[in-house]
């Protein structure tokens, strides 16, 4: 251990803060106030009534909601303590969450979002009074036309999966309107495309055909030809795929599907390595979407808010979700709800505006050359890591050996696992001991013992080297003293979690109420305060 500490000088002597903080419901202290809402002024009450008496009696609760009563300062401390117990993107070198495109979220962009001229705009106010916001949306629309080559964009989808659902709705409606004597109900995707491509389409009733990868990691043209038919509705595909390998036959794929009468949707959630380099149009796609919370620097915000802007070619422009933003001849902007074949509204109001504001600021700050440079640095960083990580004993990058990857690589610890018994999950937990986050997900394990590294353009060479040292050291430990890795983490707040509980309906609890119901006996035994 001592010698390893000396060998790996870049690694920190890290230890996570542990506050032993209770669940917020357990902080409940009857009578303690966080905020006292002022009574409305008499004059106003006189004009509007008290509001509450307007609510029908049948809708009134009989009991007070079981919310915890806590003073403001305790609330602040509670969340600050929790924030110190995680490995957020602003703390660590967060390259270990491949496919999530964790990059720097410029803090100045928060100022624009919080500017009252943006934050105080009400969605119901007249559009003549929020021309600035509409102008921004319109300009974003123009930017994305340029970035993708497609013709019209909708800002309705509020996540990548939501954008796929929008694409699938357009696909379905288009085929309903263009019946060519066939029932087109089959959607083709690939096994290394995002699983939402299949899942969202299936929700709308499509039958899913998934192309498995060949030895080179890519789906084959031959396999695609074998499955297209008069039942083919379309193709939803990621490129580069989750392996970071770019499918060079992508234009042939779209041509084959078009010939069979289908449409092609491009999942560009991971576009970070191809900005300004390739476009959906030239690859033959009819639709594509971008995740503003990934490539375009919006924070992920632990699962939201997000934006999946969706674009289509002229042929499909009237199918988009409404409203879209248009410009009148007099230079004013308006919300256009009048699209002949629109799939309708797919979200309330006009899109996740704050996420769009951040992305707008990011694009404007970089310009055309800047966007392309983002892609080039992201690809360079990725291939630097590739050359280093594949030299680590026990690690490999399956498929297409010796070839460059785009923005990420799905690596494998298969050899490490077979030779030492240390698997990707163990490595991920040990990485936390050095203050790194490494995600060991990507189930089912198509690549055995997988881990996916996506460095983006944000991290410096020094930071990447520090991360590599973490992986290198853990490999050394796995071969010399595997128990250290298998018992990790040692410097973290939470030790190994028994995940089987979250697979057990008898035990899992998503809400505090469910937790009380399912675990009351244990809480009583441990003398835990359970009121509230």
């Amino acid at each position, binding site marked *: 251990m001592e010698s390893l500490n000396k060998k790996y000088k870049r690694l920190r002597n890290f230890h996570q803060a542990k506050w032993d903080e209770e669940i917020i419901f357990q902080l409940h202290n009857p009578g303690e106030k966080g905020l006292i809402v002022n009574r409305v002024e008499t004059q106003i009450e006189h004009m509007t009534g008290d509001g509450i008496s307007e609510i029908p009696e049948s809708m009134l609760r009989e009991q007070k909601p079981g919310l915890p009563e806590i003073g403001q300062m305790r609330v602040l401390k509670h969340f600050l303590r929790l924030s110190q117990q995680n490995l957020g993107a602003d703390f660590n070198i967060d390259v270990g969450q491949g496919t999530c495109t964790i990059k720097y979220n410029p803090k100045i962009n928060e100022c624009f979002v919080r500017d009252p001229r943006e934050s105080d705009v009400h969605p119901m106010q007249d559009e003549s009074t929020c021309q600035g916001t509409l102008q921004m949306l319109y300009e974003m629309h123009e930017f994305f036309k340029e970035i993708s080559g497609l013709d019209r964009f909708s800002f309705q989808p509020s996540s990548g999966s939501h954008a796929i659902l929008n694409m699938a709705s357009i696909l379905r409606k288009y085929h309903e309107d263009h019946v060519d004597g066939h029932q087109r109900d089959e959607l083709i995707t690939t*096994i290394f495309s995002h*699983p939402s491509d*299949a899942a969202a389409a*299936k929700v709308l009733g*499509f*039958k*899913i*055909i*998934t*192309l*498995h*990868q*060949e*030895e080179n990691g890519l*789906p084959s043209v*031959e*396999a695609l030809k*074998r*499955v297209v038919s008069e039942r083919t509705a379309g193709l939803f595909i990621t490129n580069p795929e989750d392996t970071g390998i770019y499918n060079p036959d992508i234009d042939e794929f779209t041509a084959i599907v078009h010939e069979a009468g289908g449409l092609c949707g491009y999942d560009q959630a991971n576009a970070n390595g191809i900005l300004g380099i390739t476009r959906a149009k030239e690859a033959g796609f009819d639709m594509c979407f971008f995740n503003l919370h990934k490539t375009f620097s919006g924070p992920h915000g632990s699962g939201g808010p997000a934006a999946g802007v969706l674009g289509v070619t002229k042929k499909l422009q009237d199918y988009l979700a409404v409203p879209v933003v248009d410009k009148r001849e007099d230079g004013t902007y308006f919300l256009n709800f009048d699209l002949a074949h629109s799939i309708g509204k797919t979200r309330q109001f006009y899109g996740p505006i704050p996420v769009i504001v951040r992305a707008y600021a990011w694009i404007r700050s970089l310009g055309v050359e800047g966007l392309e440079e983002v892609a080039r640095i992201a690809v360079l960083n990725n291939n630097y890591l590739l050359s280093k990580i594949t030299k680590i004993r026990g690690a490999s990058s399956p498929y297409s050996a010796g070839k460059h990857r785009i923005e990420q690589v799905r690596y494998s610890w298969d050899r490490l696992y077979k030779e030492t*018994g240390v698997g990707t999950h163990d490595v991920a937990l040990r990485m936390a001991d050095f203050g790194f986050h490494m995600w060991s*997900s*990507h*189930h*089912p*394990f*198509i690549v*055995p013992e997988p881990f996916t590294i996506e460095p983006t353009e944000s991290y410096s060479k020094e930071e990447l080297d520090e991360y590599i040292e973490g992986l290198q050291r853990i490999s050394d430990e796995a071969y010399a003293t595997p128990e250290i890795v298998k018992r990790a983490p040692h410097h973290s707040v939470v030790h190994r979690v*028994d*995940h*089987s*509980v*979250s*697979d*057990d309906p008898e035990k899992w609890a998503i809400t505090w109420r469910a937790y009380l119901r399912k675990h009351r006996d244990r809480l009583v035994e441990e003398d835990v305060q359970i009121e509230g």
Partner: protein
Amino acid sequence: MKTIGLIVNPIAGMGGAVGLKGTDTALILNKAKKLGASPGSTEKAKIALKELLKSKAGVKLMTCPDSMGASVAKELGVDFELVDISVNVRTTAQNTMDAAREMLRKNIDLLLFAGGDGTARDICESVGTKLPALGIPTGVKIHSSTFSINPTMAGRLCASFIEDKKVDWRTGEVIDLDEQQYRLGNISSKLYGYLRIPYLRAHVQKLKSGSPESEKYGQEAIAQYMMEKMEDEIVYFIGPGSTTMALTDKLGLRGSLLGVDIITKSKVLKRDVTDRQLLDFMNEGRRVEVIVTPIGGQGFLFGRGNQQFAPKVLCRFEPGQIHILSTQKKIIDLQGQPLLIDSGDESVNKQLTGYYRIISGYHESLVYKAVG
């Protein structure tokens, strides 16, 4: 505290290294010993047991005399209870079967057995799915999907089980080759039945996506989709396996688990037929298609466990007339290796080589290659 049974087939694996394809008979065993085979089964059983004993949860061990388990336990210095059976100096299949029956009678919680397909078959024959079991792979032939991937994993899985972690269960196929035929160069294998096998979902499935499909629901979803695809006027030759069995169950038919049946959507025309009967039926001139599932851990589509689909039967089908049913997990576990067709006739193998749309869920299929 849980009780784990341990049965070691000490001679398993001896034939492989000396090219004898198994040790199912005494004659072959002698030959193996003369050719210099040394027991590896005991060592592998020790690895698994050692891994199990790392667990902090207490465990009772029940095992068989001498080389069939007791010697391994003694070496590791662990207490154990002996099952009351007599063991021959040269252990036999009968010893394995007696031990398994005795352990079932004594209500142990899980049986860990070290051996190969022959051993799995003995366990299957004596206790079937009544006793949960898990194989430590030590034999030459591992076609059955009742084994852990290696001895360490077997021990670790067993440890999770005694620690009361949530372990899931699946039915694993017991397949064995006819060794005599195999040594003559002829592949002849049969599906002998099933064992109830534990597995850990946490090892293979992501938590982010919620509860992963259990094998049972997976098979039901596959059956539902296939049922929708079946046509009234077509006759189907349906191969063995629990995945295809789920389809006959869904159709309300009484199919045979281990044999090939001839069915329509609404009735069983003939159960458990031979290749000859399949051929005779084809000569009746009705429209026929095939429904099969890959058998065992090695991804054989034809040639293992379903030899009723003889070359002279298969040569009359195009790939488009063959429906393959399989859970996605079974395909992913092949790690990219194509499905294998070993019909016994090269030209038939070639004819059936190509991409198939494997039905892998409800309204879901996976395009995957099969090669001959």
